[in-house]
């Protein structure tokens, strides 16, 4: 198990100790929350990229050149 490191800035002394059961539980909960956050962010980024690609295809079908389509997002 990874250690908890605590630094006392007033003395410059760094100590290591084992995690408490409460700290282990909190870390597991936060790891789960982080996984959820990352999944949401990745899904949002994928949706944005897909919508952008779809829009570009539709614009090209209307006759816009690649340079003209690129200029729209500058």
């Amino acid at each position, binding site marked *: *198990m*990874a*250690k*908890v*490191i*605590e*630094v*006392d*800035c*007033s*003395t*410059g002394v*760094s100590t*290591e100790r084992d*995690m408490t059961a409460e*700290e282990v539980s*909190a*870390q597991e*909960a*936060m*790891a789960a929350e*982080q996984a959820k*956050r*990352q999944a949401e*962010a990745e899904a*949002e*980024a994928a949706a*944005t*990229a897909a919508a952008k690609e779809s829009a570009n295809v539709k614009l090209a079908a209307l006759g816009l050149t690649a340079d003209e389509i690129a200029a729209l997002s500058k």
Partner: protein
Amino acid sequence: MSVFLQPIYTQTVGSGGASSITFNNIPQTFTDLFLKVSARDTGAGTQSDFQLRFNGTGSGVTTYSDTVLYGSGSSAVPSRHSGTSVIYISGVPGSSATANTFSNAEVYISNYTSSNYKQVVIDSLGENNATTSFLFIDAGLWRDTSSISSITVVAGVTAIAQYSTISLYGITKG
């Protein structure tokens, strides 16, 4: 105006890693605090979000919030989190990221001894010479009027990897 950057402490993680690093009894004599983070997470994933907490606040509080803009190399995505128990230091390479790459993050905490809420600015990245890497700009707020005397950085997934370093500096403006 003169600005002085005073090293307070640098902690390097040894073998076995660390679940968290806490700086206690931070001197109350500076104007601002500055944290430099070079780290890697031992947990699975390309990138990890380390957690930043002040004064020993636990997972039950809701006094933190942040607004984030992140880029993955192919898109830029804004996001907002309010009523949270931490501010995130993101972009830390996980075990799936290119070996031997560590994050490069800076955390600036203004007026940490004031009785106002505490503003935090974080820029962090984990470039790893791969198709996907991450860059984060984060504006954080801790809605608490207490002076900051303790800072904790918690690993996002499993543990802060060996050879990671976190340095704390005090900044005096005069």
